[in-house]
């Protein structure tokens, strides 16, 4: 079942004519014959959830827009920066028109007149491709004034950030788009009430918006029939790490993680033993090999003790020292903490330093307990979700792989390392 990756490798798909030849831009007639509110209801009924990480129902998010307040903005979050995640880049580089079509439909539903795509700064190439695609869409009358005689006006622009993971958090993204430091904002007010330029704003991920054309063309029921009871539709999963065939795979939600690793991604390299996997991107708790049969959907992964997140499955074989992997993840969050709030700014650095000691063989069991203490002092106590994201790998690695820590501690006690 391919919705987003249908024709993804077709040569020339980035051009409007090839995209149209594959049935692209055909959803407008159906959409414009209905009222904007009806489109919101369709997306609600489809069960489409945000694909950026939080998994919040997309249609519901749209329905929270402050009533009768204009102008409104739509911002596409293309700040893909969570380690393990590389699905949006593939969509952006190979099928830009799909996102444009999704953004036009979403703008119609949400009565938006100006929309932006916020790219992480390193995606210059993808943004250049998109600028060309947008130009073609304007020339064809799909963007601009009175689109296809519908009376709807829409301007769509690309915007590049400049290197900051935190800008993937929607309120930090909006600050960055306003020409400020990319620090998160206090919520409420949520962007749907006061977002870009303090106006009602919808922020959605690339993959979420790219799913909208199919839902409008094929109908909400058809989309809702795919997947599990609460996790509807298909999901792009970036599989990386120790697998034979790493890559982005579009799966029906609910597929077993085993199938994803062993069938789609070809199994573990050198037929090694699976040790651990991170199911949904670096911030989601890592799970031990015995959870590999978990269904790849929001609810099942949560029940197993982790999260589906952005859909980035990172696979580690038995050769991995979990402490070393955690140290690297911890460095990431220390590096990317924006510094606005104390528990995150100090906690991420402290965790990284302690993990460094443990990895160097000069840590004690007291250090491991201290890590758990810091996790406890950060969980739900930071200004934005980055703090919780930093806790994910550390707390889960200790919970599931404490023996890896203890082995390193034993080295010290055994006198193998002199302090």
């Amino acid at each position: 079942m391919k919705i987003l990756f249908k024709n993804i490798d077709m040569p020339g798909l980035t051009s409007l004519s090839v995209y149209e030849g594959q049935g692209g831009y055909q959803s407008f007639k159906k959409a414009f014959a209905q009222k904007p509110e009806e489109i919101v209801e369709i997306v609600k009924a489809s069960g489409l959830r945000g694909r950026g990480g939080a998994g919040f129902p997309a249609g519901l998010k749209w329905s929270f827009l402050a009533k009768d307040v204009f102008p409104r903005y739509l911002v596409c979050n293309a700040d893909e920066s969570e380690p393990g995640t590389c699905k949006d880049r593939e969509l952006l580089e190979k099928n830009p028109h799909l996102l444009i079509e999704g953004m036009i439909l979403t703008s119609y539903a949400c009565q938006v007149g100006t929309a932006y795509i916020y790219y992480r700064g390193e995606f210059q190439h993808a943004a250049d491709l998109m600028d060309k695609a947008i130009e073609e869409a304007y020339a064809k009358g799909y963007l601009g004034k009175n689109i296809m005689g519908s009376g709807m006006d829409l301007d769509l622009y690309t915007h590049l950030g400049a290197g900051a993971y935190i800008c993937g958090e929607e309120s930090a993204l909006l600050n960055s788009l306003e020409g400020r430091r990319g620090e998160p904002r206090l919520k409420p007010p949520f962007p749907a009430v006061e977002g870009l330029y303090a106006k009602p704003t919808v922020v959605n991920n690339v993959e979420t918006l790219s799913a909208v054309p199919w839902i409008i063309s094929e109908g909400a029921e058809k989309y809702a029939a795919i997947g599990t009871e609460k996790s509807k539709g298909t999901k792009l999963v970036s599989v990386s790490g120790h697998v034979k065939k790493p890559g982005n795979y579009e799966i029906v939600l609910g597929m077993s993680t085993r199938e994803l690793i062993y069938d789609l991604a070809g199994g573990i390299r050198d037929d090694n033993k699976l040790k651990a996997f991170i199911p949904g991107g670096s911030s989601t708790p890592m799970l031990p090999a015995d959870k590999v049969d978990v269904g790849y959907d929001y609810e099942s992964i949560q029940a197993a003790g982790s999260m589906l997140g952005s859909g980035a499955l990172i696979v580690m074989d038995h050769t991995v020292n979990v402490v070393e992997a955690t140290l690297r993840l911890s460095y990431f969050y220390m590096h990317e903490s924006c510094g606005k709030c104390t528990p995150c700014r100090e906690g991420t650095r402290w965790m990284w330093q302690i993990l460094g000691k443990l990895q160097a063989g000069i840590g004690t069991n007291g250090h491991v307990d201290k890590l758990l203490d810091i996790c406890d002092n950060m969980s739900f106590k930071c200004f934005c979700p980055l703090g919780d994201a930093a806790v994910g790998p550390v707390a889960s690695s200790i919970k599931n792989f404490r023996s890896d820590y203890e082995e390193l501690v034993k080295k010290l006690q055994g006198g193998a390392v002199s302090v």
Partner: protein
Amino acid sequence: MFTFTPEDEKQIEKIVGKYPVKRSALLPLLTLVQRRDGYISPEAMKAIGGKLELSPAYVQSVMSFYTMYHTHPTGKYIILFCHNISCQLNGADDLLAYTSKKLGIDVGGTTKDKKFTLHREECLAACSGGPMMRVNDVFHENLTTAKIDKILDSLA
């Protein structure tokens, strides 16, 4: 002396026109200047601020938040070498050390001929193609020492 060229002025007008509030053009203008000059000087900060009615101090405060802006001249080619989890699992540390040795510079350094600047990077969204590096705007995936040699040696 920092000046905008007539071509820059055209670009700036186009960029500023994208937003209802001028300040939004700050990151794009910083990027425009950096792509032209390789870095952003104090004079450039002042000039950009002048275009957008922002103080040089404000420009610097925003600029310093983002890792991609340079305040000093860099090499012609900027190498961002990913070392985070997916790339790490597939040997990025050894390949980064190899690249550093090949170029004769530490991470963060620039070669004497001003050709290459080497940076370690925290994930560039190419995880299923790791180990990877970005050289200027181009992503290079599934790296090996031989591939690194070929890429770097082919750059003029």
